[in-house]
């Protein structure tokens, strides 16, 4: 077969075929990409949902961690204070004060409950003071507790205001003990 198509047209025809081949290849490529996206989309959605869940969990865990850290710091502070107080008592505290406190606690009647003991050390001009706060079952037990303390040599003076006897029972009292401690 002879082809009398001029050379320029033959070149144009070849170019047209090459363009079409490129179009087909690109179409195939795009098709593959679209199909791939179609197949990967469910996995992407699932992984996105999972990521969101994990991020939410992470935020929650971080909050819990922060709360725990706050608690820990509060506990640390408390522990630190207690340690400091104990250390103070051990290092700074007078052994006589301990003996006085032991004396009070050991001789305390069962009807008396001590809520707090406040100590203020004395110096050359002032006496040391121990303030006892507590709960007495009745007037008799409170009087008995006062008398017991007054009999002790460690105390120079015991102040129990008369207002503490206003009630007959369940008396909240405050007692000041003075001495050379």
């Amino acid at each position, binding site marked *: *077969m002879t082809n009398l198509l001029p050379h320029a047209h033959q070149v144009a025809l070849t170019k047209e075929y090459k363009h079409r081949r490129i179009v087909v290849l690109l179409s195939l490529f795009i098709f593959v990409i679209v199909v791939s996206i179609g197949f990967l989309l469910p996995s992407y959605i699932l992984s996105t949902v999972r990521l969101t869940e994990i991020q939410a969990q992470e935020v929650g865990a971080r909050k819990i961690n922060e709360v725990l850290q706050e608690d820990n710091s509060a506990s640390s502070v408390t522990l630190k204070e207690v340690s400091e107080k104990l250390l103070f008592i051990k290092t700074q505290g007078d052994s006589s004060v301990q003996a006085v406190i032991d004396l009070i606690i050991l001789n305390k009647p069962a009807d008396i409950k001590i809520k707090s003991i406040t100590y203020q050390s004395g110096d050359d001009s002032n006496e040391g003071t121990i303030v006892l706060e507590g709960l007495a079952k009745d007037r008799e037990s409170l009087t008995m507790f006062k008398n017991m303390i007054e009999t002790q040599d460690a105390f120079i003076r015991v102040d129990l205001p008369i207002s503490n006897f206003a009630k007959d029972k369940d008396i909240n009292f405050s007692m000041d003990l003075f001495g050379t401690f």
Partner: protein
Amino acid sequence: MSKSFFDLFPPPVFLQMPFVGFSISDTSLRFVSLTKHEHTFVLGDYAEHPFKEGVVDAGFINQPEEIVAILKELKKKYSLQFIKITLPEEKAFVFRTQIPAVSPEEIRGSVEFTIEENAPLSVSEVVFDYMVVPTKNSSEDGKIDVVVSVVPQKVVDSYLKLCSEAGLFVVSCELESQAIARCIVRKDDISSYLILNLERNKTGFYITTGGAVQFTSTMVITPNNLSGLCDEISKIYWHTHGDKKGNVKISKILLSGEHAGHEGVREYIVSNLGIDVEVANVWENVFTLDTYVPDLSYKDSLSFAPAIGLALPFVSSQLS
């Protein structure tokens, strides 16, 4: 029947660039498309548009706008894009010559030197192509036989311009004789035939061997002038390409064209010249009538031979 890889996975139509055959003659424009069906082809779309007097005259286009309008109409109606067209036989020069035995890459250059010896045109003004004709003695005498087709560049350009104006992409141009030979001579037939293309106002005489057209001549002889037709056949048959030359021995005359099916034409030639004459089967290389019958009558199909030849897929390996 076993299926090949490309039967199962055919390339996309977009890449196949399916084409149709367009035959533009002095009297009409015809087109045919063939559709692949299993391992053969069947007739697809076809149409014929007769021209008014003088639109095309002896292959010269006088009224291009008329043809462009028809082409546009056909393009729109049948969604055409790629086409093959015939070029007028009257404007072409077909000759057989010998060139020195050179490498395949150098054949075209050698053929170029023979054009001005055989055609009254300069090489710069023509479009040409060739076909190597295998011969028994070609390797011994250091020569290669080639059949060269030459058409003036301006003729080709005028036909291509029609198509480009109609928005059609031409993939191949062939001489009418070559398209007809490819259509009516069986693919593996190496015999020589004289083909008579009987048109309304002219007759084409083509000698073909192994499907390659080696001689063409177009004369203004109408089928009504049967005696004149016989005289011309006689000249060509006995004096130009008879047995005396040795290479070409015409075994049969094949009739094609719109007047080939007229009653009495074949019988007249046979009775006057005593030569074997046969009305061509334009579906010879397309399908067998045992398996498929087209909706185009046998008589009408004879005028579609060039278009069918063009619509057949390219099979030769001898194209330069």
